[in-house]
């Protein structure tokens, strides 16, 4: 089997890529995609730990399912917010959505 460390590093890499997307993307949808990547990295971690550390109990998979649920809800609400903001302010660029600024 593939060593656990590989999975963890891959997941960490995916997480970092997602984080970079969240931090550097101008477009709100791009930010959302970054978040999805991060959540996926978390899931890979959970499943890898399940498979390697506690293969007899399904805790890891159960948690992954909950993460997926949350991701689905988050995507729906996030995109709804983006669409609403787009309608009101004609932009999906995060930097321009700053009416809360000082």
């Amino acid at each position, binding site marked *: 089997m593939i060593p656990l460390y590989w999975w963890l590093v891959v997941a960490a890499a995916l997480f970092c890529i997602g984080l970079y997307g969240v931090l550097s993307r101008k477009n709100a949808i791009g930010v959302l995609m970054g978040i999805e*990547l991060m959540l996926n990295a978390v899931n890979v971690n959970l499943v890898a730990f399940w498979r390697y550390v506690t293969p007899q109990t399904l805790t890891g998979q159960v948690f992954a399912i909950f993460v997926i649920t949350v991701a689905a809800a988050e995507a729906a609400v996030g995109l709804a917010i983006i669409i609403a903001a787009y309608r009101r302010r004609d932009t999906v660029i995060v930097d321009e959505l700053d009416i809360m600024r000082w």
Partner: protein
Amino acid sequence: MPTNVVQIVVFAILTLMTLGGGLGVVSSRNLFHGALFLVLSFAGVVGYYVLLDAGFLAAVQLLIYIGAIAILILFAIMLSRGLMSQRQSQRNEQWWIALLVVVLTFVVLAVVLWQVDWPVASDQALASPSVAISQLGQELLGPYVIPFEVASVLLLVALVGAVILARETET
């Protein structure tokens, strides 16, 4: 357990898909392409799950991430099309700090993960993971029934919230 060559090759391909897709997501200028890269990355993760003997999760990943979330994102991109001209930069001005931070984070994580001695289960346990979906169902409706119900409430709330947010304001 011995490492199978086929497994390594498959893992490498999947990693290429996943991380390559991820990089595509954060670097492509065309947002639509970014979303397609996201799909590629999700597909890689599906493969990961299959490789990790989590068939049910693989199907769920396919169904929800590719079948629902990615399509939703593509849809949103098409709805807001024409705003983001491809000539203008897709990165904000802090991207280089972000890159620095992210690379540092990765290095730290990789080092830490390497140093930890993970309590990997015995070979015997590794050889026979519990993969029955019925057991998953029992777990979800047994010990995890409260989180399960909370998740259902969350989905309902998200559904209603998304509808209200995205609805045209009737004025």
